[in-house]
């Protein structure tokens, strides 16, 4: 049940996806993810409903960025635009300078409704394999990817169970494992730790930092938990309502190997979280 048994190197190699993409592609000046004047309106005509209006921020390669903001502000909507599921109404979202027009192959998304994003008719392992099918990987690599992803989230023992046989928190972790097994370069997660208990949450937060370090993955996380945002992020994007706009991008200056107990008791940590907190508490 616990994540602590995770092996030291959960995702030892990602050659198959990396090999296809030259390392030179990321220039120093182009941010990995670039959201510029993004707007999103649902519906049209009378019933239209503008959720996002003129949102701008960037995420650099290898960065962890957290997005916080009140419920219903449009965080999920933003992520869906980034994942190419919804077209932006105006402005643009781009990866390495390329405007996103459909699901980008180098990106994986962990959905907010984890329990509705897993296929209930497939076992955990098959859920992990499903998105990998069309990569035509050799069976050994398929197995290796599943095993290491499941080990990373501490679910090695559950690989033959069905998602609905697991607790909410475990399902959440399966959804994360599926994204890990896909070995994306950019990982986007929508409130990924909302329904796990405190201890598992800490472990998953640390896993998140670990994969960033090991693979230089770019990670974007939406969360309601300000402590979590400050603990995880290099930068926190604070959104205000409505329509959604960036209240402030807070740079988090906490020393690099973060630790649940020591980092969280630093006075600097308290200062940073108070800053984000007062942004949120302030009437929008």
């Amino acid at each position: 049940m616990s994540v602590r048994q995770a092996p030291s190197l959960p995702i030892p190699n990602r050659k198959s996806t990396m090999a296809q993409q030259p390392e030179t592609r990321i220039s120093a000046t182009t941010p990995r993810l670039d959201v510029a004047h993004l707007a999103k309106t649902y519906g049209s005509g009378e019933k239209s409903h503008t959720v996002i209006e003129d949102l701008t921020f960037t995420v650099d390669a290898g960065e962890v960025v957290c997005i916080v903001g009140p419920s219903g502000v449009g965080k999920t909507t933003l992520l869906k635009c980034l994942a190419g599921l919804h077209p932006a109404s105006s402005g643009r979202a781009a990866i390495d300078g390329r405007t996103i027009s459909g699901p980008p192959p180098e990106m994986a998304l962990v959905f907010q409704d984890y329990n509705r994003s897993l296929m209930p008719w497939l076992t955990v392992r098959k859920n992990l394999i499903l998105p990998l099918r069309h990569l035509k990987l050799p069976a050994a690599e398929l197995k290796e990817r599943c095993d290491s992803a499941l080990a990373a989230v501490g679910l090695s023992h559950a690989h033959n169970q069905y998602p609905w046989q697991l607790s909410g928190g475990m399902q959440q972790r399966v959804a994360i494992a599926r994204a890990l097994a896909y070995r994306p370069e950019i990982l986007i997660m929508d409130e990924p730790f909302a329904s796990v208990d405190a201890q598992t949450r800490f472990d998953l937060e640390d896993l998140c930092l670990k994969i960033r370090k090991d693979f230089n993955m770019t990670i974007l996380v939406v969360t309601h938990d300000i402590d979590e945002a400050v603990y995880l992020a290099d930068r926190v994007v604070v959104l205000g309502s409505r329509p959604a706009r960036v209240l402030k991008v807070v740079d988090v200056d906490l020393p690099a190997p973060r630790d649940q107990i020591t980092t969280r008791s630093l006075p600097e940590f308290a200062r940073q979280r108070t800053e984000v907190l007062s942004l949120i508490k302030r009437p929008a």
Partner: protein
Amino acid sequence: MRNPAIRNWVIGAGTPVLLLIIWWFLSADSTDPFFPPLETILVRFQELWLFEHFQSDVLLSLGNLFLGFAMAAVAGVALGFATALVPPVRWMIDPLIHFLRGIPPVALVPIFISLIGFGTQMRVTSIALAALFPTMIATVDGIRSVSNDLLDVAKVYRFSRKERVVNVLLPAAMPQIFSGLQVSLQVAFIVMIASEMLGSSQGIGAMTLLAQQSFMTADMWAGILLLGVIGFLVNVLFSLLKRKVLSWYIGSRRMARAA
């Protein structure tokens, strides 16, 4: 009896047995022409169905039932997918389908008799056509109600069209397809009986109606009994299949309920 599980089991198995015993003794000396003794009914049941008419009538009826149902199942799912996935097809045949579905399936039997005649062909066609609609409509509903989240997952992980149909839409719609199939099976059974009663001299339905019309009430009761047992068994078989195919669905429902 202290253990509730055993007590429930005893009550569950005991009540039907008790009812049968009551029927047996209450009807034992019956002279009422319409309610013959259960013993007579069972004797006739054995004489009529177990040997004499087993092949000529029982197997014939069942064969028609399964053939018609199988055709309806395959065509229903295929048409359902075509309808749900190709909007122009849906717009074109939706009103027709809904109108045809409104017609009581049995009322179509006289029309088929006039068009195709009265043979096995008519019976199978009636069964297949009447049983088509529930499956087809359930398939369409099933596909349309596949959650957007699953479709989004398919998009994010860039599934091909075929992968989307085979690995997402079909399994996700399966529970509804199966409830459609179950209704289809019921309809097929009804139309099987009706088509025999209306236009044939063979089959269990025909035999039962004939027994009624010549006042052989014990034979009629035997026929009713056989039809009841067949209806029950066919349903049980189907449920077993369903339980196998949809174990994930049944399990997840049970889990959701227990939670």
